[in-house]
């Protein structure tokens, strides 16, 4: 079912529209800012992924501490604009249908490469959890034998990713690359990230953990796929791109896309799935960037993206700023107090996320916060969760204030075609 949006009574609707009719800011201007920022965020994601691609090629051509470290920092840089783009996911089907190829998580990394004995083997939920493609040129997936002699982008995209229909068989995207650059984080809830040695990509006798050539092939293929996936999405938001045109086609539906993206990312995805659930499981692998210990940044930039969608302002990696008429302006014209409420709640969330980021940057990493009984960690994570849940309530109020209920009704199959329900 689709993501639904809270609506309002007919009275509030007509009042809202009457007020907005005399508005200084047009809805089209607001939507134009939204799509321009999307184009910039995906463009920056692509550019930083290309830098990562070059760094990965350097690592493979000349494995060393330096080239591995450079590839890792290129990966970390690439996450900054991408996480800020996640607010475009849930409101835009073109993004949502594509996202699983790029940022799928969590993953059963034993599908890809060697893992520690503590990882275990195949599970009830996933027979392929320890398949280890890098060590096995010939594979069996759901009773079918697969020739994996050469590891290509096609093998990864057509055969390995979501193999056997299991979502945790993540063979591509940021987190697959992250695993190949860092390896498993075996420090539990103690300090430290994954410690894969650069010699895992070395040739000849220097190769550690076996199959270094195949590991290098996998890393190169997965990085190439990430770049081509981001090229596709950047094109969708460029002038005449399909995602851009879809948003600009209908003012109401476009505003619903902005608010749906903000609300669904805030509540169900970020506060629920990514933060609170991991905290309550006390599992150090239940963090978004678990190999690199970069989770605090992923959460921070996700939340920043939500704020950016409302304020219509985005700071690019080169320091330049894209800004324009925003949902904040539109809301302020209808109900200035509601706009103030939204801005202050977004700021409260960013403040909680900044606390979490500062602690992690200072050495109290996200997986340490998840430790059983760790009260300081729990307070930091729940600070972010509570902010995100609280801001969702105000996002719902804005849907009401802008009179977007009729659009939400149009998105409902049963209300659109009541007879279809009883077929």
């Amino acid at each position, binding site marked *: *079912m689709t*993501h*639904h*949006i*809270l*609506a*309002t*009574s*007919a009275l509030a*609707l007509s009042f809202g529209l009457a007020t907005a009719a005399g508005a200084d800011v047009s809805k089209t201007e607001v939507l134009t800012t939204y799509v321009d920022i999307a184009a910039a965020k995906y463009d920056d994601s692509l550019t930083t992924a290309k830098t990562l691609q070059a760094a990965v090629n350097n690592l493979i051509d000349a494995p060393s501490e330096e080239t591995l470290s450079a590839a890792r920092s290129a990966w970390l840089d690439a996450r900054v604009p991408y996480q800020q783009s996640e607010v475009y996911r*849930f409101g835009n089907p073109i993004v949502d249908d594509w996202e699983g190829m790029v940022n799928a998580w*969590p993953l*059963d990394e034993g599908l890809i490469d060697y893992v520690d004995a503590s990882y*275990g083997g195949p*599970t*009830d*939920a996933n027979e392929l959890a320890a398949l280890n493609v890098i060590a096995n040129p010939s594979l069996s997936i*759901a009773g079918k034998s697969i020739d994996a002699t050469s590891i290509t982008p096609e093998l990864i995209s057509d055969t390995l990713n979501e193999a*056997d*229909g299991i*979502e*945790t068989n993540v063979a591509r995207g940021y987190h697959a690359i992250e695993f190949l650059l860092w390896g498993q984080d075996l420090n539990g809830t103690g300090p430290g990230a994954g410690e894969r040695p650069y010699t895992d990509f070395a040739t000849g006798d220097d190769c550690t953990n076996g199959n270094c050539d195949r590991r290098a092939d996998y890393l190169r293929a997965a990085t190439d796929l990430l770049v081509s996936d981001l090229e596709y999405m950047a094109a969708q938001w460029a002038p005449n791109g399909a995602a851009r045109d879809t948003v600009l086609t209908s003012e109401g539906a476009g505003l619903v896309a902005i608010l749906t993206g903000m*609300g*669904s990312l*805030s*509540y*169900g*995805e*970020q506060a*629920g*799935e*990514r933060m*609170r*659930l991991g905290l*309550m*499981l*006390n*599992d150090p692998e239940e963090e978004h960037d678990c190999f690199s210990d970069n989770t605090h940044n992923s959460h921070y930039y996700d939340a920043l993206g939500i704020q950016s969608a409302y304020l219509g302002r985005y700071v690019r990696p080169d320091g330049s700023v894209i800004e324009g008429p925003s949902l904040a302006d539109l809301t302020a014209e209808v109900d200035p107090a509601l706009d103030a409420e939204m801005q202050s709640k977004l700021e409260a969330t960013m403040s909680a996320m900044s606390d979490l980021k500062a602690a992690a940057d200072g050495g109290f990493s996200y997986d340490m916060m998840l430790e*059983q*009984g760790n009260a300081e960690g729990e307070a930091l994570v729940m600070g972010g969760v509570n902010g995100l*849940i609280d801001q*969702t*309530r105000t*996002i*719902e*109020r804005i849907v009401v204030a802008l009179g977007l*209920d009729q659009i*939400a*009704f149009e998105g*409902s*199959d*049963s*209300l659109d075609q*009541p007879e*279809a*329900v*009883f077929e």
Partner: protein
Amino acid sequence: MKHLAVLIALAPLSLPASADTARAVNDLILPSFENFAQGAQVLHQTALADCRSDAVAPAYQAAFDTWMGVSGLRIGPSETGALSIAFWPDDRGFTQRTLARLIDTEDPTGLDPSEYHEMSIAARGLFALDMLLYDPAFNTYGAGDYTCGLVQTITADLDRQADALSTSWAEDYAEVLIGAGAPDNTIYLSSDEAFRALYTQLLSGLEFTADTRLGRPMGTFERPRPKLAEAWRSDRSLGNVLISAQAAQGLAHALAGPELPQTDAAFSQVMLAADRVSDPSFQDLDDPQARLRVEVLQQRVRALYGAIEIEIGAPLGITPGFNSQDGD
């Protein structure tokens, strides 16, 4: 006159008032939480008397039934509270792994009810018990074994959680909902918001039943996933679907009054479709006929969702808000 009758029947629906929210809270939600607290208490007393799986199972089944009456509510104290009572789905096998580790290492926390609230939710609540009481890898323990004490710890923790949840609803969140719009109420600024919050819970509970309780084990036609069914070890998969649909019907009436003919008709269809399902644990989904019967049930649950939208949402001009399942 016929028209007038229709108007009268619809009249309470045209203006959702705090009265409707109060009725739902006082007449349905709070008694259902008390019922759950009672079920959890009996379960714990049963486990204390005899911890072995055969002895505990009937009280476990009864307690799970009482939980299903409130499992669809995920706001207020249940926002976080529900997760440590019923951690499911478990995509990465956390429950199995965590319980096995506790038992292998004889972790002292597993025998300490006062500390057990610190434990991972994967080893707490109903689904941890489901594994210990019904999985052959766990359920053959004797009265003196570590697992016996672990079962008693988990039931004690569940009993405490059920009490805490019921108390928080009764003493705190009931007033937040009923007193919506009061100057000091920062959660719900109007009675409309509180009403909508409950309406959202009603529909998102049904959405979860259709998409997850039924959709997960169905998988695809080529690759059904019976082992991904909810509580399949204890044969509860179908029963949970039915009780959750029943709870939704009850909440619909509590919110909107007795006259919901389409909703009631749709609920009857859910019952009929459930009657035809051959295995209550959905373990025969490899059989295309069996799969079809579960698919029909899923359609009937979605039709119930649609009927509630038509009879409650449309007349009031409301659609559901964001819910906690909105992520991936």
